[in-house]
């Protein structure tokens, strides 16, 4: 049963990062391929805060990790206000590479390639949430709040403004609305989601290393959003559940263990191509 619960927790965490990615890429049209970097910064900040001698409380550490990623994502998204489309993809690629280099090489802060072990599980009133069935409550609560925020945002005039910005920024200016402020606000919100998800991930895994936050991870996140469905709440939820189930299904096929990881990458790649060709709106999304 623990296996099923860990799948559930991980999927919930990826839903939260997926919301962040969907908001930027799907709704505002800022094609970021550095969302795993933001996710990672949240995880490392959270880990350092809770593992310090003072051992900061879970909620406070999570809030600081989220807040730091709000600022980080604003900075990371700023180039998108100046360079558009294809050029921002290249910029974003660079940001992801820089983040990966820092995660691997800043040994005193991140443990380098060996990672950071021993991140404590949260404890509330002496009750430790240290097993997957207990931790589902934490992940479910955070992701539930994230989904609620996403849903409210999409229903509000702010969400409508963001969708319109993706289509035509000049027309937005011509009806007298600000483009810059709305984009920065969306980037901030996406950063908050990513950072909090990072903290929750770190506390659940109790060990983090740079490979959870590299370019492959960013592409996996994008794949989740594309296959689940862009621009919709349902798509952000379905995508991670499907994509994380895939490796489990592959284990049922009898292939040598050395082949397992490449087979998974291969399956993700094929899925992306097939969806782009035959169902670009994903399982439950709107056309990109």
């Amino acid at each position, binding site marked *: 049963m623990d296996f099923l619960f860990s799948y559930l927790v991980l999927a919930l965490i990826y839903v939260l990062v997926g919301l962040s990615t969907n908001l930027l890429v799907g709704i505002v049209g800022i094609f970021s391929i550095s969302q795993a970097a933001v996710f990672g910064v949240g995880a490392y900040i959270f880990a350092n805060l809770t593992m310090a001698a003072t051992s900061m409380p879970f909620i406070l550490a999570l809030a600081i990790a989220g807040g730091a990623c709000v600022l980080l994502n604003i900075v990371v998204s700023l180039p998108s206000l100046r360079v558009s489309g294809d050029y921002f993809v290249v910029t974003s690629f660079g940001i992801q590479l820089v983040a990966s280099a820092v995660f691997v090489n800043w040994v005193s802060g991140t443990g380098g390639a060996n990672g950071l072990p021993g991140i404590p599980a949260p404890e509330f009133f002496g009750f430790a949430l240290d097993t997957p069935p207990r931790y589902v409550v934490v992940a479910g609560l955070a992701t539930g709040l994230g989904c609620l925020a996403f849903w409210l945002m999409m229903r509000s*005039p*702010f969400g409508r403004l963001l969708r319109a910005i993706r289509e035509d920024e000049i027309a937005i200016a011509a*009806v007298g609305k600000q483009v810059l402020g709305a984009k920065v*606000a969306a980037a901030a919100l996406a950063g908050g989601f990513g950072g909090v998800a990072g903290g929750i991930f770190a506390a659940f895994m109790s060990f983090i290393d740079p490979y959870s936050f590299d370019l492959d991870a960013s592409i996996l996140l994008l794949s989740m959003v594309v296959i689940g469905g862009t621009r919709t709440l349902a798509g952000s939820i379905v995508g991670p559940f499907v994509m994380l189930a895939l490796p489990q299904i592959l284990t049922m096929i009898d292939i040598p263990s050395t082949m397992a990881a490449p087979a998974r990458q291969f399956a993700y790649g094929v899925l992306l191509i097939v969806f782009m060709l035959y169902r670009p709106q994903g399982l439950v999304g709107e056309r990109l």
Partner: protein
Amino acid sequence: MSYLQINAVDVSFGGLRALTDCGFAIKEGEITCMVGPNGAGKTTIFNVITGFLKPDRGSVSFKDRALTGMTPQQIVAVGIARSFQNLRLFVDLTALDNVLVGIRHQFGESVFGGLFRPIHTASSQVAVRARAMEILDHVGLADKAEIFVRNLSHGEQKLLTVARLLATEAELLLLDEPASGLSARALEGVMDLLRRLQKDGKTLLVVEHNTRVVQKIADTVLFLHQGHLIAQGTASQITSDPDLAEIYFGGVI
């Protein structure tokens, strides 16, 4: 007090002079049509008035207030809004959403309002939606409210651009070729709408190529040629001038 006043505006793009010492005034409550051959600078003057383009020289004032240096957003707030020749509608949104985006002073347009006061946002949207429906009804698109813009006909899309302008509550509307490419019936609809807007108290500056439309709706006609105003008068004065006809149909001065 002058209403909209353009004073000696120069604009050049590299070596190309789009506007040269271009100046004119338009009167409140009138429909002013701007005509001239392709490349005369009609769209460029729209861009200058609405703050999308900084003139190299010259100034624009609205009700004796200088507009030079203002952002497009500030100019809309002052009361001037423009449409685009290539429409620039949000084609993946519904007709109603296109109008809703333009409505002024909505609660919940910032991230905080939308997330932390959802009930107030939802309740204030009721009035905003009613207003948007009223505008759609005014241009004759009430029954198309929930249709995605890419599924609307060209004529309906043109009407929708006017609806989106009305949402801004601007009093001076700059329309870039609102009647081009329309069928005879759709054309009548647009002309009728422009006259109704005038009755509602709007002032219109319209770029138009169709002389029949100009004759029917224009109070004043401005004739632009090579970035300069060369004639101004009533529609019949302008259309009966042989020199202007020569320029319009391919002559040179």
